């Protein structure tokens, strides 16, 4: 089965407010898929629909070949879901939080410490979840999900509000899971994260997918104002058009030895999103 996640014409409304409209998504096995959009775009709602926590108003979806609306407890054994609103047992220690789920899933207790170690929480195993920092809580939530060794991961804003170093650690863990053949569906409004991790992305704005594709392909596709940025040893910067007309000037600078660096300017995902929607991703 290559199609791990499939959403067909998903639409959803909360009362009169339309939050998702005609969303179509397909995830191949072993792929990291990023759903990018500003806060309130409908990212979490889509995860809830795909994972069977919410019935869509229209359309259909399936994960691991099972229709989302008929997913049952046993089907979730291969699906790891990390959402910020999924709580921890605040009074229990990190170790006991994992121990509970190890007992439920029938995982040997010998796997608990390695799971904590993997997310850098082995030393914090005796600390109650209530006393953890936001970054540590995110890592504990991730450990709870990864301990089960799922084949499909849903990560809702896994690095939201975390410092760069903790975010980096989480990125490494996500890439390790991908190397293990795990399919990852993540939502983010961090374009750098999406560019770094994702094989394929979809840009979601006000419930609609406005563009989809590989991050680099999307950036190239929307590279309408092609420019060359030149930096000279003298400290001067020049901005040239990305066509044959610049060839003469570049050639002269190369001959004279004045050219220090030359870069083509390509839009990042933020620019692409801005161009498509007229608004910023980081809202």
């Amino acid at each position, binding site marked *: 089965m290559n199609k791990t996640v499939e959403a067909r014409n998903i639409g959803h409304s909360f009362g009169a407010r339309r939050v998702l409209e005609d969303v179509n998504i397909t995830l191949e096995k072993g792929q990291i898929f990023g759903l990018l959009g500003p806060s309130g775009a409908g990212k979490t709602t889509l995860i809830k629909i795909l994972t069977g926590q919410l019935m869509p108003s229209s359309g259909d979806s399936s994960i691991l070949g099972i229709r989302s609306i008929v997913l049952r407890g046993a089907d979730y054994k291969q699906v790891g879901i990390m959402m910020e609103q999924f*709580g921890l047992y605040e009074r229990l220690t990190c170790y006991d939080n994992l121990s509970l789920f190890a007992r439920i899933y029938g995982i040997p207790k010998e796997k608990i410490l390695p799971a904590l170690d993997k997310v850098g929480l082995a030393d914090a195993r005796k600390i109650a979840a209530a006393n953890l920092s936001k970054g540590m809580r995110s890592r504990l939530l991730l450990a709870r999900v990864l301990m089960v060794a799922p084949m499909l991961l849903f990560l809702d804003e896994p690095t939201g509000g975390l410092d760069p170093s903790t975010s980096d650690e989480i990125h490494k863990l996500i890439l390790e899971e991908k190397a293990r053949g795990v399919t990852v569906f993540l939502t983010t409004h961090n374009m750098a994260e999406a560019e770094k991790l994702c094989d394929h992305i979809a840009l979601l704005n006000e419930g609609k997918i406005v563009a989809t594709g590989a991050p680099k392909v999307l950036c190239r596709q929307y590279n309408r104002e092609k420019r060359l940025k030149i930096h000279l040893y003298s400290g001067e910067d020049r901005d040239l058009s990305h066509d044959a007309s610049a060839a003469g000037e570049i050639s002269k600078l190369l001959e004279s030895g004045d050219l220090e660096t030359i870069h083509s300017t390509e839009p990042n995902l933020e620019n692409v999103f801005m161009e498509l929607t007229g608004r910023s991703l980081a809202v």
Partner: protein
Amino acid sequence: MTGHIRAIFWKQMKETFKNKAIFIQFVMFPVMTIIMENSVKIEGMQPHFFANLFAVMYVGMAPLTSMASILAEEKEKNTLRVLLMANVRPVEYLIGIGSYIWTLCMFGAAVIGVAGGYTGTVFGLYLLVMGFGILVSMVIGAAIGSFSKNQMMATSVTVPVMMIFSFLPMISMFNKTIANVARFTYSEQLRLLISGLGHLKVSPEMPIVLAVNAVVALGLFIVAYRRSGLENG
């Protein structure tokens, strides 16, 4: 199935001493019984007066509030949803939490019984009556917990309900009119049963009222569960 129930039971046991709001429910009346039975002796006072009184208040308060509170907290913090998505069935969760509360309340009931001086068959009958009462209170608590979205909502419903079942039997001892109303509640019937354990006075209305209360509690729970399940309030 038993593995999941054991896991939920284990989780609750781990939380026992850390969840002070619940823990105090389990120990308050047993401790008060020990103190009052040993420190207050009034001429002409009914034997085991404080044990009888506090046993009934314990039944009306501890299982009801702890069941509602645990359920509502898990719903509010979305930990219950995680459990259900980890293939824990609602019935397994309820049995896991229920068996924990029942066990701890029975331990508290035993302490009250010992402090009240019950022995032998009377002690056994007392535990039987308490076990039944704790079960009915737990079902009412589960109904409130299922109905409530969060702990605040659960508390606002639990407090008046708990006051009715735990205080009516006490007030009915002093007021005939209230006694006439209270006799329709399971907690008043439990008080009458426990007071008469030594000479086993069972009026015909006792089993009827207890059975009707149990059925109504179960019905309330089924309605609340069908309306909200364990995930939504």
